[in-house]
């Protein structure tokens, strides 16, 4: 039986070897791309902003379709997130796009908790992915990734500065998702005001330590364009799905009495820049950042919270399992204790209720007895009365018969004794 001997050489110091002919692995990127095309892509955008800032319209404009949905009312009690998934196709690329909208953001009187539902939603997507990743039998390959890849934060075009709600929300979101701030409805701001507004916003973000998404500048082919775009953040956009005839072309625009704002005109707004950056240049980087930075951070925090630690190398899988087991037992123990408590409380309550009911029953019995007694007394009285009445009646009857008898006798005895009888009669009565 051959015993084993493992020798590993140059794992770290791999040598560079020149090729003397065409091997053919330059087709690897193509193979990779083909596989991805067959599989399809998915991209998830979260739109955060107050109601009425044109979020849905901007999405429609960006992706050139009419996503369904009517504008929401302003009377929502809290912030909810509504997500819709669409399948788009362009040439041979299939994209599963999910657009998540914040409904009711900024409409409440007390906006302290507005950011909470957004953070919860993002965390829930991370959690779902983490669960899938931790499963024993998992299907990561066909898992529909719902993690938010980009968050478009709509800033109201006040022209002054960021609202405190914006600052707070962005601060809470910057470690969870790639934030791209944009100035919505920017046709309400003039050019000079816009420049000042942008500077103000950027400085406020920096001074508050909000980390917005920076377009990557490490790849030479896109470094230049990305760095110029970085300086144009936040993008001032205008969205429109209506088409207006300008010259001899139909362009997407908003028509006012004093002029027409063309969406795709770079002098009018930054829509083209946004589309370029978001979709045409950096979509893949956004997805990668979400996976390698934000998701990893979430995963690390969650696992550390659950009590897992990276212990020394040879006990790793066991420590994971061990801690898990220990926690599970702890949890079960707690659960049992709680059950006991509840059971005891229940028993107690039942006892109390029973005692109460018994009391009530006793009372009722007593009442009944009393009533009965009363009833009997009355009955007796009535009977006595009846008896006395009967007696009277009897005596009367007797007297009556006696009187009638005498009367008859008197009649039979003749009329001579009428006087006597009269007298007797008088004496009798």
């Amino acid at each position: 039986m051959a015993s084993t001997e493992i020798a590993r050489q140059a794992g770290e110091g791999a040598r560079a070897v020149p090729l003397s002919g065409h091997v053919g692995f330059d087709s690897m990127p193509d193979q990779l791309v083909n596989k991805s095309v067959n599989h399809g892509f998915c991209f998830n955008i979260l739109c955060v902003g107050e109601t009425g800032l044109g979020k849905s319209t901007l999405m429609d404009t960006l992706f050139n379709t009419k996503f369904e949905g009517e504008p929401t009312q302003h009377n929502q009690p809290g912030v909810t997130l509504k997500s819709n998934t669409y399948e788009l196709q362009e040439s041979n690329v299939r994209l599963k796009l999910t657009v998540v909208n914040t409904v009711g953001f900024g409409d409440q009187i007390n906006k302290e908790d507005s950011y909470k539902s957004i953070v919860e939603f993002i965390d829930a997507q991370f959690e779902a992915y983490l669960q899938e990743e931790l499963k024993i039998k998992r299907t990561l390959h066909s898992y529909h990734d719902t993690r938010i890849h980009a968050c478009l934060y709509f800033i109201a075009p006040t022209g002054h500065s960021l609202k405190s709600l914006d600052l707070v929300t962005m601060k809470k979101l910057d470690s969870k998702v790639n934030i791209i701030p944009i100035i919505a409805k920017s046709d309400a701001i003039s050019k000079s005001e816009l420049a000042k507004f942008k500077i103000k916003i950027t400085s406020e973000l920096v001074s508050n330590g909000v980390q917005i998404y920076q377009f990557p500048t490490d790849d030479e082919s896109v470094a230049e364009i990305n760095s110029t775009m970085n300086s144009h953040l936040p993008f001032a956009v205008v969205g429109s799905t209506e088409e207006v005839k300008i010259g001899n072309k139909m362009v997407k625009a908003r028509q006012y009495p004093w002029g027409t704002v063309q969406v795709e005109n770079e002098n009018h707004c930054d829509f083209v820049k946004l589309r370029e950056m978001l979709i045409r240049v950096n979509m893949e980087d956004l997805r990668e950042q979400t996976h390698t930075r934000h998701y990893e951070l979430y995963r690390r925090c969650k696992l550390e919270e659950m009590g897992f630690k990276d212990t020394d190398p040879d006990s790793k899988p066991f420590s994971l399992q061990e801690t898990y087991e220990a926690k599970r037992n702890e949890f079960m123990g707690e659960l049992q204790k709680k059950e006991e408590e509840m059971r005891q409380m229940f028993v107690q309550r039942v006892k109390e209720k029973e005692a109460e009911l018994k009391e009530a029953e006793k009372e009722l019995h007593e009442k009944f007895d009393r009533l009965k007694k009363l009833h009997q007394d009355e009955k007796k009285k009535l009977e006595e009365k009846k008896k006395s009445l009967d007696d009277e009646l009897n005596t009367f009857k007797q007297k009556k018969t006696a009187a009638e008898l005498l009367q008859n006798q008197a009649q039979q005895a003749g009329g001579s004794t009428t006087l006597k009888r009269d007298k007797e009669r008088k004496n009798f009565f």
Partner: protein
Amino acid sequence: MSESTKPHHPPPQGKGEKSHGSDFSYVGIDAILEQMRRKAMKQGFELNIMVVGQSGLGKSTLMNTLFKSKVSRKSVQPDPEERIPKTIEIKSISHNIEEKGVRMKLTVIDTPGFGDQINNENCWQPIMKFINDQYEVYLQEEININRKKRIPDSRVHCCIYFIPPTGHCLRPLDVEFMRRLSKVVNIVPVIAKADTLTLEERDYFKQTIREELRANGIDVYPQKEFDEDPEDRVINDKIREMIPFAVVGSDHEYQVNGKRILGRKTKWGTIEVENIAHCEFAYLRDLLIRTHMQNIKDITGSIHYESYRVRRLNESNALFTTVSSDHVLQPKTNGQSEEQLGAPQANGVAAQHEALSHEM
């Protein structure tokens, strides 16, 4: 809170015109392909190939021929003498090669000593252990809390098994090895030194091999069950009709018809390695490198690695059951129980612990 709608009105199909102003219907979604390509080029690729076979079958030469450079162990080792090691060794050497801007880290894992002893029992064990060790390393990194941005992939993607050109049928050693290893790694069997077989002998040999593989239930790459769609199936069926490839390797160039090509020169003629009329090296190269490399890596990652992971995590579960387990644990059928690290008692997959493990 989330609804998924059926494919809504698909946008007017933009035919990929890059000019922004003229074609409004072009959104630019297909630019993601270019972005992916850029990312892939920047990151580079990794490929780990293992060659297994008796000594003298031309493994090192074939590796050199495949990658047109001196990538084999023999070319790297300073020790030129050919000695057959007393035990099976596993030697892996990494190279960074580049072609047209695409960088690849190629690792060739050699197994000198395989099948060379008098008693070859269990000679596959060190190899299986090595493969499982690579899976283990990857798994450890994956379940780390602080894990690297890109987990270095040292898993064996493909194992080329060299069949000696006897012309008759597979030997018991071949059958045994392939049977066990086809469950953990993609096996590509090749007939080595195919220039000793005539075309008829070659065809007959191939047919016999295919039948024997089928009879023993050995699933070599491309596995039938992992075909993704009908197109794939058609392509893969064609390949399945041709395996095992009968190859000849050479790293010497000769002058034939005015061109310099790789070949073997003999007294009766020159065998051109890349001529498909002479041998099937070109098919092997195309399969491995030009068309199916990504697929090979995918199957390793999503199927072989996943099944290793399932086994491993189930075992860890079985070790930690607090309930007194009177469960009947079935013994593993593919003699891997000896190789798993630190799992002496639990030598089976306890399906009953699925509920427990799923919560993890």
